[in-house]
């Protein structure tokens, strides 16, 4: 249906980013081909256009990178915190200066809308570097290490050494920032492997490290597949493993490092409950539901993928939600008016499709927003399931796509019981105008982050992490330092 007020295309210009036809691995401050010369292609999920060809790291490359990080560790960790901070502040400022370029790049490689990379990803990336830059010279005052109540210094918290970091494709540059900023601030050196579908922003970050004059070997970037990640985790000279990704891989990593003395933080899957009580601010709750599950096409580990709505307002909320979903604009991720971009890969699209089919087969009622999907690329229309019970697969398994499962409850106790009845425990949301209810319910929820009258709000000062199969360890805030310190 043609709209009276049709927004003309408003694409962000691609010319601000210059993508080279090929990229090497970033080891010891230099870009180099993989030892065995292997490469792989990275495509734009919205068009399936090949963006570039990048080196595919193997075991030998992992070893070279870890050795480089080890060599760099001695000097880097011996630098006064105030000196390390200068590098981090410089990186943060360069990220801000190059934010438009990086936002366009991230949108091209990941498929998410420019509105999100511009307004969410990039500001948060810079904020994380600024935040941890501030901690670098204040580690003695972070509450770790042995300090008496009189303030007499005991053992100073020490860095762990070489951190092996593996990040996912859903927020490539932001997850890099979550991993690298605290590691460097605390005096560790890193070997980071971005996901195989989104290697480009990490390689641009490598260039930023050079631009900032960061000593060689402090940051090493290995593009590649799961085997490279496995080799990195297995490397005997890695002291710390930080992983964000699926629960299955997280479990494998935990088994792999058991008994090795390596420290680990795992940030894994989720099936967040977004609880809407009958006294909720309905219009804003609808916005929060949309942000909760359709932000980044639902490819968010802390997504509010289960909507728990009080039965007495179920019809009203669902009516308003469907009306709102009908206004979402799906299409070219570079268009500044696009709300919903592309799914990151054909594999992920197939996984979403299979789970949605299961949902329908198990008898949940499917509704998808009326929107036209582009013919090329990987796309999935915003979808919700009503009539879902705890027994449905779509209420239990993480879909990692723009699919919301709607369940109902009658009392606060039932809401809490259903919210907690999951193998995960990463995020939850509470919508009510009643302050006492927010506090009471939040205290009973077993989730690492509980949002009240908002959802998917991030800030570098706030620790983030999971309960149960959503992982362990915290990233962000003062707590995020602990994962990189021997305290």
């Amino acid at each position, binding site marked *: 249906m043609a*709209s*009276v*007020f*049709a*927004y*003309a*295309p*408003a694409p962000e210009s691609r010319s601000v980013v210059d993508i080279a036809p090929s990229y090497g691995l970033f080891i010891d401050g230099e870009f180099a081909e993989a030892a065995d010369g292997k490469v792989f292609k990275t495509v734009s999920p919205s068009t399936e256009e090949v963006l570039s060809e990048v080196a595919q790291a193997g075991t030998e490359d992992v070893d070279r990178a870890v050795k480089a990080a080890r060599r760099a560790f001695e000097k880097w960790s011996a630098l006064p915190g105030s000196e390390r901070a200068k590098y981090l502040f410089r990186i943060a400022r360069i990220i801000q200066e190059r934010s438009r370029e990086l936002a366009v790049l991230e949108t091209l490689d990941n498929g998410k809308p420019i*509105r999100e990379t511009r*307004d969410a990803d990039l500001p948060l990336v810079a904020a994380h570097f600024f935040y941890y830059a501030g901690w670098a010279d204040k580690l003695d005052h972070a509450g770790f290490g042995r300090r008496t109540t009189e303030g007499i210094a005991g053992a100073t918290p020490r860095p762990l050494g070489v951190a092996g970091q593996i990040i996912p494709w859903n927020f490539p540059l932001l997850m890099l920032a979550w991993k690298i900023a605290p590691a460097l601030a605390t005096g560790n050196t890193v070997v980071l492997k971005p996901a195989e579908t989104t290697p480009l922003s990490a390689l641009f970050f490598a260039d930023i490290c050079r631009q900032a004059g960061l000593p060689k070997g402090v940051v090493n970037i290995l593009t590649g597949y799961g085997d490279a990640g496995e080799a990195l985790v297995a490397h005997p000279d890695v002291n710390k493993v930080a992983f964000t990704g699926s629960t299955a891989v997280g479990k494998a990593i935990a088994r792999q490092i058991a008994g090795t003395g390596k420290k680990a933080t795992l940030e894994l899957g989720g099936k967040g409950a977004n609880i809407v009580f009958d*006294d*909720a*601010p*309905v*219009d*804003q*709750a609808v*916005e*929060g539901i949309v942000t909760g599950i359709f932000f980044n096409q639902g490819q968010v580990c802390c997504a509010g993928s289960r909507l728990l709505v009080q039965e007495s307002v179920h*019809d*009203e909320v669902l*009516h308003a939600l*469907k*009306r709102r979903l*009908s*206004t979402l604009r799906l299409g070219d991720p570079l268009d*500044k*008016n696009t709300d919903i971009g592309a799914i990151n890969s054909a594999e992920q699209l197939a996984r979403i499709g299979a789970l949605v089919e299961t949902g329908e087969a198990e008898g949940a009622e499917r509704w998808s927003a009326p929107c036209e999907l582009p013919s090329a690329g990987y796309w999935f229309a915003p979808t919700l399931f009503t009539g879902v019970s705890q027994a449905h697969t779509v209420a239990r398994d993480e879909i990692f796509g723009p699919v919301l499962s709607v369940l109902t409850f009658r009392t606060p106790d039932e809401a809490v019981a259903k919210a907690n009845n999951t193998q995960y425990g990463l995020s939850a949301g509470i919508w009510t*105008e009643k302050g006492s209810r927010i506090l009471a319910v939040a205290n009973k929820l077993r989730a690492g982050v509980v949002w009240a*009258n*908002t959802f998917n709000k991030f800030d570098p000062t706030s620790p983030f992490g999971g309960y149960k199969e959503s992982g362990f360890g915290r990233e962000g805030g003062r707590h995020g330092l602990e994962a990189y310190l021997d305290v």
Partner: protein
Amino acid sequence: MPTTAASPKLSAPFEQGGPPLADATASDSALRRFLHGLPGVDTVGLEARAASLGTRSIKTTAKAYAIDLAISMIDLTTLEGADTPGKVRALAAKAVNPDPTDRTTPRTAAVCVYPDMAATAAAALAGSGVKVASVATAFPAGRAALDVKLADVRDAVAAGADEIDMVIDRGAFLSGRYLKVYEEIVAVKAECGSARLKVIFETGELSTYDNIRRASWLGMLAGADFIKTSTGKVATNATPANTLLMLEAVRDFREQTGVQIGVKPAGGIRTTKDAVKFLVLVNETAGEDWLDNHWFRFGASSLLNDLLMQRQKLSTGRYSGPDYVTVD
């Protein structure tokens, strides 16, 4: 428009032919219960949504459409103690022919004046299609006895006003005497005859978003044809957030009663960029049924010249300047 499901709330009285939600206004306590039973408004969430819609990028053909639509929605306003017949006539000429260099420019919706200038405006606008709007009810404070306010309205209507912009009694509203506010609007509406009634809440004085939502429903229940943010005479006037909230109110009211009500943000909207942001709010909240000057207005004066300069820029490809639009 997305198809609408059956309304979950009380729509029965209206369907039976009575006024919408008649039982809500049966007594002071019933009205209070109804207004306080409306869903609350979360300040952070509302403002975030308004800001997010403010990032829409409206270019080329969409911008041209929005500029012409915005011009056609202006209530070109002069509400000064220094107003004279000459000033009003100049403003009327501008409303009818906003850009003398381009006769394809749409006319504004109305000229908005004090009641004693309504006759002058009516004479100047006769036959043009541009409406005469007059503020009334002891504008802007509204601090007068009801019979004085009604006389004010009668004068304006008799002088040829097509539209009456009344102010509510904010003192009564803030002290919780909702039925008094309601009855005053009903009485003013009765004096309006065929003139359309815009009810001004002075949102800057109501202060909270919960109050603005309650006032919106109160005004609509009492028979307002338009709900309007503000007088332009206080520190905070129309904002994207309070206008978004009022657009939600008219959207919900139509779903429940079938009655469509207009919205008029007024004061503080000075640039094309601002105006386009408000039209995006209309488009994505109330929907395209409101993208018409019968249902949406801007209370503004300096906005018009900025729209005209942007319009010239779009058609000629270059910026002109303030000397290429008329100052009236």
